[in-house]
């Protein structure tokens, strides 16, 4: 510090004086900076769906599940009641001409998974016509996994996430009567002819008597790519080796009869399914899971799934797996079906929420000897 600095000091004190901000040119510049910041913040808020009109997103979708089904902390927001399965998949190699995925080469891979009932109530009684699901997690030799969630209906009831949400709301039981408002359901169906058509197809396919004799379908289409780079649209399903028996007209009173029968069946001997890849032809819709593909489409039997054991949901088993339909492997890719992205997004919110919640045991207990 020398005396030579003093003129500069005076200059600086003027320059950084608060009053220096009040000149016209500085105020203009500040306004431009403020506006730019505000606009970026507004864009950010709009991107994050925090500004009205808010569209349906994964958070509001899962909020709707919680509003319709009530709070069930610790459980999946949909397909809440379930049991874990363990087994393996014996690939016969026939799928390799369609997909280069390791799982379709000949050989055996371990599989874990989950049987469940559709619906967000973990303690709900098993009922005839409950939609059943099988979710699988193929553990591939390179440490990777392939996951799929399938249902025992031939087509899905809605074609996109908005319709799924609207159908949830329309069929929500009324708080006073305990039954859905028939007007709401009627209005939904009037606006969704594809759902009317899908329900008619579902009615033509009787439900099976249990979990072990049910066919589970991917519903959504996927694209398989083989080692030559050829991409093929497919829908897959697992078809039971057990003979199909229709759902008896009078179901037992036992609230877990479907699960108990499955547990007894698997304890007796492993239950098996064939993994069938149905090949779509040009013109077969891949973006609408409510529309079935023609019955004469080529089907490739890719191998046998064996379910050898069942266990109640517990830490570290299927309870802690998110059966995200977009956990795929090289050689298996999503189609243009909008449900796939929506399922992946919503499952992630459901998984994140339940991961942070205290758990209570599942309604489904597995007792007796396993194999």
């Amino acid at each position: 510090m020398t005396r030579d600095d003093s003129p500069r000091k005076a200059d600086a004190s003027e320059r950084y004086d608060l009053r220096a901000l009040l000149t016209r040119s500085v105020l203009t510049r500040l306004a431009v900076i403020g506006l730019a910041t505000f606009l970026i913040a507004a864009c950010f808020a709009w991107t994050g769906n925090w500004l009205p009109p808010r569209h349906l997103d994964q958070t509001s979708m899962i909020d709707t599940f919680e509003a319709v089904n009530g709070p069930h902390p610790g459980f999946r927001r949909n397909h809440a009641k379930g049991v874990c399965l363990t087994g393996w998949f014996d690939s016969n190699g026939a799928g390799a001409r369609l997909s280069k995925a390791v799982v379709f080469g000949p050989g055996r891979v371990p599989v874990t998974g989950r049987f469940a009932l559709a619906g967000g109530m973990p303690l709900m009684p098993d009922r005839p016509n409950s939609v059943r699901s099988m979710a699988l997690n193929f553990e591939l030799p390179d440490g990777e996994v392939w996951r799929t969630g399938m249902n025992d209906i031939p087509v899905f009831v809605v074609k996109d996430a908005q319709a799924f949400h609207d159908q949830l709301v329309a069929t929500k039981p009324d708080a006073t009567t305990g039954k859905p408002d028939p007007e709401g359901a009627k209005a939904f169906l009037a606006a969704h002819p594809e759902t009317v058509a899908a329900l008619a197809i579902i009615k033509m396919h009787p439900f099976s008597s249990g979990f072990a004799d049910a066919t589970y379908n991917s519903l959504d289409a996927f694209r398989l790519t083989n080692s030559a780079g050829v991409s093929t649209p497919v829908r897959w399903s697992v078809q039971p080796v057990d003979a199909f028996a229709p759902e008896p007209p009078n179901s037992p009173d036992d609230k877990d009869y479907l699960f108990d029968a499955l547990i007894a069946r698997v304890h007796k001997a492993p239950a098996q399914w064939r993994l069938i890849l149905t090949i779509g032809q040009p013109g077969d819709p891949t973006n609408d899971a409510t529309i079935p593909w023609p019955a004469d489409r080529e089907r490739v039997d890719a191998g046998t799934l064996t379910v050898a054991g069942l266990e109640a949901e517990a830490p570290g088993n299927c309870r802690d797996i998110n059966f995200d339909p977009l956990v795929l492997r090289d050689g298996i890719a999503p189609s243009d079906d909008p449900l796939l992205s929506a399922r992946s997004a919503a499952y992630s919110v459901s998984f994140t929420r339940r991961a942070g919640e205290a758990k209570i045991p599942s309604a489904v207990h597995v007792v007796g000897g396993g194999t």
Partner: protein
Amino acid sequence: MTMLNRFPLFSRVLHWAMAALILAMLFIGVGMVSSLSSYQRLVAIHKPMGILIRNSQAGVSPKSHILREIFGGFRIFADG
């Protein structure tokens, strides 16, 4: 005012590229978790872009602990 000591061109390009990428990541991130239809597409951008940013910064300044911890944290989320 004159800039006597500017950072080398490479550092400046890297700095502004990082600024643009990180801002883009913030937008893609909030857009991703609030869109059912674009979720799949945006996750497919978000994951490799996060790896790119993290590796660019780790490659240039391997001792930058703060950034490394931030992006290490992001990586946990990215594992889904």
